[in-house]
């Protein structure tokens, strides 16, 4: 290896397609729905039949403005649609209605965290509205086309080539998804294809100002796949350049099974889209008052919420970060805090036992039979020593299974802690007899041995003994005597 090995810099830009969760499609009144039988959600507009005319869905335009505002974009006061011409069976009218030179949103930004605890700003070039194409399934002998997805409203969010590593690309996607999830504009489900990401990547010698030749990566179906595909592709480009060859500008498909990028040998002709204004749609004007109205109604976004939770409820950044990952969880948290003062305790429950139950049930916090009132009631049962923390976790599971309150369950199952001196004394008598050696250790000053006896007491009482009380009684008996 030579000492003058070339150092490369990676340059990544991302194009994210967000399916908007409007009730109907972008340009017709067919239902915008996933998973129906092929070609059951189509009309003459979807099929591009002669004489059919598109009409813009007002809601889709509103959603686009909402997203633009949340991403700090400027909103164009004049919006028009254009035809992007291409021939492929997924698009029966041979053009996609998109936006060329007057995208609805432009010049925004997203901040991503960096390793040194600060943040880096990734520019957003533009975000434009367009319609989705149909779905192709390739069989051995033919391709099969389902036009249900045709006309689904998409917002394509194009970033600046500001990312310098696959991890930065991953962080950008996470942040974008988090913001989108707060806006009620998309279900953001990658498995359903509601969020799709293509990546442009190139390398250049460190310090160079010109960009290298880029390749476009497609077909990644998770954020992790985007990161892995980028790692693979950057490595491939390094090898090409170091061997003295040139990177060819092309579209590559990520093959998740082979874990490699493969050249897309499609029968689609070279890209020459010949954009021109869509004659079937008149232009749109967006008034400043409309934009102000949208901004006014934006929910509190993840980042301000994070900072407020840290400030107002004294949460650690780590705890607050997990809480705000889902808007419904953040709301749940705040509803608890309206009736209970200890944010740290509530967050421990939400990020611990409640999260486990949610995962076990594969459900959101809103779907697990739990209200903020019920959770707070349970936490208070631990506070006042009615039950131990351990038993409380079991009670939580039973609450969710039965829909009953913690009080009802503790009553029915007789789970209330035994704190009564008499009953506990009898229990300790047994333990002292059974564990003479431990008793000696405690008397010799080994504090941790007390914990062992408390553990045994919990076991014997099936979790019902008050551990604090047991510990005190053991110490009093063995040490003070």
């Amino acid at each position, binding site marked *: 290896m030579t000492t003058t090995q070339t150092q490369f810099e990676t340059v990544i830009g991302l194009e994210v397609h967000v399916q908007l969760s*409007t*009730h*109907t499609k972008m340009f017709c*009144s*067919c*239902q915008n729905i996933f998973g129906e*039988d*092929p*070609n*059951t*959600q*189509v*009309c*003459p507009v*979807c*099929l591009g*039949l002669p004489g059919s005319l598109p*009409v*813009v*869905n*007002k*809601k*889709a*335009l509103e959603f686009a403005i909402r997203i633009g505002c949340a991403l700090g974009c400027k909103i164009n006061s004049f919006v*028009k649609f254009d035809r992007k*011409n291409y*021939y*492929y*069976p997924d698009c029966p009218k041979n053009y996609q209605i998109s936006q060329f030179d*007057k995208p609805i949103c432009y010049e925004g930004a997203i901040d991503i965290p960096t390793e040194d605890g600060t943040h880096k700003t990734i520019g957003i070039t533009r975000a434009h509205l367009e319609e989705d194409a149909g779905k*192709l*399934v*390739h*069989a051995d*002998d*033919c*391709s*099969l*086309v*389902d*036009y249900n997805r045709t006309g689904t409203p998409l917002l394509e969010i194009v970033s600046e080539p500001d990312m310098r590593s696959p991890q930065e690309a991953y962080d950008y996607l996470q942040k974008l998804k988090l913001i989108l999830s707060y806006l009620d504009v998309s279900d953001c489900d990658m498995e359903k294809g509601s969020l799709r990401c293509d990546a442009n990547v190139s390398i250049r010698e460190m310090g160079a100002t010109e960009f290298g030749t880029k390749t476009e990566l497609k077909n990644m179906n998770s954020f992790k796949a985007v990161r892995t595909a980028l790692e693979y592709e950057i490595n491939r480009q390094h090898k090409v350049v170091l061997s003295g060859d040139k990177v060819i500008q092309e579209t590559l498909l990520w093959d998740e099974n082979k874990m490699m990028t493969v050249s897309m*040998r*499609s*029968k*689609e*002709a070279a890209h*020459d889209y*010949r954009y021109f*204004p869509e*004659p079937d*749609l*008149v*232009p*749109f*004007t967006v008034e400043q008052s409309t934009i102000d109205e949208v901004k006014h109604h934006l929910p509190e976004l993840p980042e301000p919420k994070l900072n407020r939770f840290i400030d107002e409820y004294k949460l650690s950044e780590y705890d607050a970060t997990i809480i705000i990952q889902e808007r419904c969880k953040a709301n749940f948290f705040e509803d608890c805090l309206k009736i209970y003062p200890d944010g740290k305790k509530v967050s421990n429950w939400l990020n611990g036992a409640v999260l486990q139950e949610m995962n076990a049930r594969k459900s959101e916090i809103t779907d697990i039979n739990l209200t903020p009132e019920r959770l707070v009631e349970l936490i208070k049962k631990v506070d006042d020593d009615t039950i131990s923390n351990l038993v409380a976790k079991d009670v939580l599971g039973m609450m969710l299974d039965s829909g009953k309150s913690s009080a009802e369950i503790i009553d029915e199952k007789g789970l209330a802690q035994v704190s009564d001196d008499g009953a506990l004394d009898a229990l300790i008598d047994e333990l002292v007899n059974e564990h003479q050696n431990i008793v000696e250790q405690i008397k010799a000053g080994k504090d941790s041995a007390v914990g062992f006896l408390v553990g045994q007491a919990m076991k014997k009482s099936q979790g019902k003994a008050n551990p604090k009380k047991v510990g005190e009684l053991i110490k009093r008996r063995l040490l003070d005597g």
Partner: protein
Amino acid sequence: MISEDDVKYVAGLSRIYLQDHEVGSLQKDLEKIIGYVEKLQKLDVTDIEPTSHALPLTNVFRDDEIKPSLDRTETMKIAVDQRDGAFKVPKVIE
């Protein structure tokens, strides 16, 4: 100048299959059309707003309300070939 290759390229983009003898005459036609556009290019349009639509209308919307789609049996009548409710086309990926 429009070359024969330009004509073939443009025809290819639009999936128009030309006979060899058609290329020459289309080349002349295209040259005339492009020539006319070039004439227009000479006009000074500095202060004129680009026209994006011939109709003097803006903001034509539709409310987000679902209406019934076509019945699939109806839809598939226009399919040249079909399988399992999907349009069957020649394989488009290798």
